[in-house]
């Protein structure tokens, strides 16, 4: 298959499937609460509606307010394209591409926080400050998890990096990465994606003043980022790349579904954390990633 067809196919897969995940989470939450809930495809409808709408801009906003969501979306999608998909591998890969992935996500964070500062709103400034502060702790966890995989597999390219640890190490890493997934994708217990009107918000409050197509880009980008973290987690923990192509891709899809359901269950069964506890939980996430690192280190030397 020529490279460009491969890339286009992957792009379509990412862009079209990603909005499914928030729908699944909402459905799980509705089941647990005994409600019928919104349809699984709700986010698709929302995106289509937002795309047709016009935009209300703050009088203070610069053109950067419209450009920033576009850049953030590009960065997240670019990061997603770097990630291999189980047996299908990556479209292209080179040594050190995992760092590019992490910094693409950082670029997206810079743009979102920049957009929040555009409107001169106290709420959004607060959200941006919290986002960039807690991201410091999340980044420590991510880099530790990546270092664990690097030490375990002896490779620094994403395509050959996912060589899961045996047993307990993988379990610890799964918990650590799951905590970071919840934090980075603004889910309960870190953040509540359902309400925008709380002083306790982190990520959701940054997009208060966005509307129309830029908001659609932000929502879609968030869905892609959620899928990216799910796929990363699944591959870091399960030995998927050793299976035959079709089975491994099916297994990947199944595990992503499982993670999504887990996110929905966590969201239904726990409350949002008190604001001061957020750094503590993130630190615990980091420790869950640090122990497997020590484990792999000691295990083989």
């Amino acid at each position, binding site marked *: 298959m020529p490279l460009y067809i491969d890339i286009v196919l992957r792009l379509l897969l990412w862009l079209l499937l990603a909005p499914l995940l928030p729908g699944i989470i909402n459905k799980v939450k509705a089941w647990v609460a005994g409600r019928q809930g919104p349809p699984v495809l709700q986010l698709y409808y929302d995106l289509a509606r937002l795309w047709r709408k016009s935009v209300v801009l703050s009088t203070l906003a610069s053109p950067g307010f419209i450009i920033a969501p576009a850049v953030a979306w590009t960065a997240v999608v670019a990061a997603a394209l770097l990630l291999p998909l189980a047996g299908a591998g990556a479209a292209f890969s080179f040594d050190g591409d995992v760092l590019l992935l992490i910094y693409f996500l950082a670029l997206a964070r810079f743009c979102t926080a920049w957009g929040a500062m555009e409107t001169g709103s106290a*709420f959004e400034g607060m959200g941006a400050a919290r986002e960039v502060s807690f991201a410091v702790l999340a980044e420590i966890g991510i880099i530790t998890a990546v270092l664990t995989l690097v030490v375990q597999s002896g490779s620094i390219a994403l395509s050959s990096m996912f060589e899961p640890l045996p047993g307990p190490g993988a379990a610890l890493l799964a918990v650590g990465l799951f905590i970071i997934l919840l934090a980075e994708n603004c889910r309960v217990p870190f953040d509540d994606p359902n309400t925008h009107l709380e002083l306790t918000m982190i990520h959701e409050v940054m997009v208060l003043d966005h509307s129309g197509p830029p908001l659609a880009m932000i929502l879609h980008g968030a869905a892609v980022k959620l899928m990216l973290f799910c796929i990363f987690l699944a591959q870091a923990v399960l030995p998927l790349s050793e299976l035959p192509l079709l089975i491994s891709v099916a297994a990947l899809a199944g595990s992503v579904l499982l993670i999504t359901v887990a996110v929905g269950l966590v969201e239904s069964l726990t409350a949002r954390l008190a604001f001061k506890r957020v750094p503590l939980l993130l630190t615990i996430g980091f420790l869950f990633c640090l122990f497997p690192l020590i484990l792999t280190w000691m295990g083989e030397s």
Partner: protein
Amino acid sequence: MLASLLASHTAPRWWIVFTLTAATCAFVAAAMVLSGIPAWEWRSEHTVGGEQIFMRLDEISAFFLLLLCVVGAAGAIYCRSYWPQQAHPRSAGQGRLWWSALLTSMGLVLTQSNGLHFLLAWESFALSAYFLVTLDRKDPAVRSAGWLYLGASHAGTLALFGFFAALAAQTGSWELGPMTDQASLAPLFWIALLGFGIKAGVFPLHIWLPSAHASAPSHVSAIMSGVAIKMGIYGLVRFSTWLPLPVEAGWVVVGLGCASAVLGVAFALGQHDLKRLLAYHSVENIGIILIGLGFAMIALDHGRPQWGLMALAGGLLHVWNHGLFKALLFLGAGAVLHSTGTREMSRMGGLWKAMPWTASLFTLGAVAICGLPPLNGFVSEWLVYRGLFDAARLKSAAAVGAVPAAILLAVTGALALACFVKVCGVVFLGAARTKCAQDARECDAGMRAGMAILAAGCLAVGLAPAFIWPSLLRVAQAWLRIGPVPGVPNHLEPLGVAHPLLALAILALGAAALAMLRGRCRRAVTWDCGYSAPSARMQYSAGSFAGIITAWFAWILRPVVRADLPVAIFPARSAINSHTPETVLESVIYPAGNRVLRVADFVRTFQHGRVQSYLIYLCAALVVLAVAVILYTE
């Protein structure tokens, strides 16, 4: 260059022509050496101070010289509009004179291969920098910053005097060159580390740096931060390849680098003064450079494995990159200062409307310094990371250090991102907080040109890193003391593809978004959960934005908060005021200095001018001596 020195006082127009010509010539020479022609050496018949003049432009010198030329030229163009003859009739001429002197002496530092002449050039570089920092010496804050710089700088020079004298005494000649075969020279590296470390602004030797960079005119801050502190790095790079190294040297340098990187950015987050904040980021970036250099030293100790080359290349490239984007940021801060008259971030806001050029160029620099793709900061940080990851992957002995260093580097990157979102957001976005921000005007073409040159440099390194790799490899191999080895792959090639692609995608999508929404936008007051009349004072301020992180680092930042909180049912006027002091200076150096002064004061009570008491001292001393003599002769 000499001609520009002469022309500086009288003819500003000729001065700029001569300066630019000299910078271009030096640039071409340096670029030629970097592109592979053999190093240039020149021995003169003349002697200075009894020593023959010996100059050498090899790969390492050329690498630093290239940066000096770019920043020197950009600063010269900028200062014609920033510090013009009309506004500063007395100091503008001096500024041009010392600017030329500074460029010349830094060029000499880079090319001297004789210890005595190196020291002479070093001293004249330090002095011309002092005169540039204190150009505006009517302001007492500037004078005290200048004193602090001069004091710290001379402490460093003193260490270097000791270093070169000891070197000359042990080798029998002032001439410098590779002397790795004499193992007894290894301990001298510690003195060099102290002397060059003060100049580079390594934590905790950075005490002079924030106030000097904040108080100097902005083009001077740019060259001080972009190039002058890199002279310290040059010294370390130079003497770590010429001298035999103690075994622990690499580890100490890595430790200092990690401390500088994390604490530098933590201190930066606590600042409210735009230029002080940028100055602390210099400490951070020096830390990143030292992490790269330190791992290269460890690698040298382990027999030059591949990861050492990567870390070194990253550290070296960060020298260029930091020079480019930090100078750009300082020039941008200067443009803001020029138009608003304040360095206090909490008095700014909404400047993008009045200053779109400055805002865009400053943001470019901010993205670059955060190490985000597709700009240059990411390229060098990526190389350093790759060195560290390779060391960890191969489970080499250095991996014990590589893993924590990689984690701390990630922390540094995330903190820098937080800091620059704060800077851009508070300074350029939102609503104007005061009248001086409302009345801001865009800077003129000269200042924009100076910034544009540096921004173009950032873009060039970011978008075409693969072209830089051969030169970088040459410098790194010169440092590792191996000749050109064929077959080293171009490690920057993947980024050379990924970065332009990302830049294209961003440009295309950004432009498409703007074009699509052109007719579909309606302006309204910020919604903000339904507040109908938001005021500019309700915006998040610099202090509140950084509040969470400064609370984590309160153990070292020791922020001083004076709060006048509202009380009672009808509260009167209330205020809150926070300030992050320079902890090392105010909690270590000043108390120590005060103690010395107190001891000196106590000793002075014995000297009061009464002859009778002096006679008693004499008698007492005689008695003590006599007793001592009697005791010891028995």
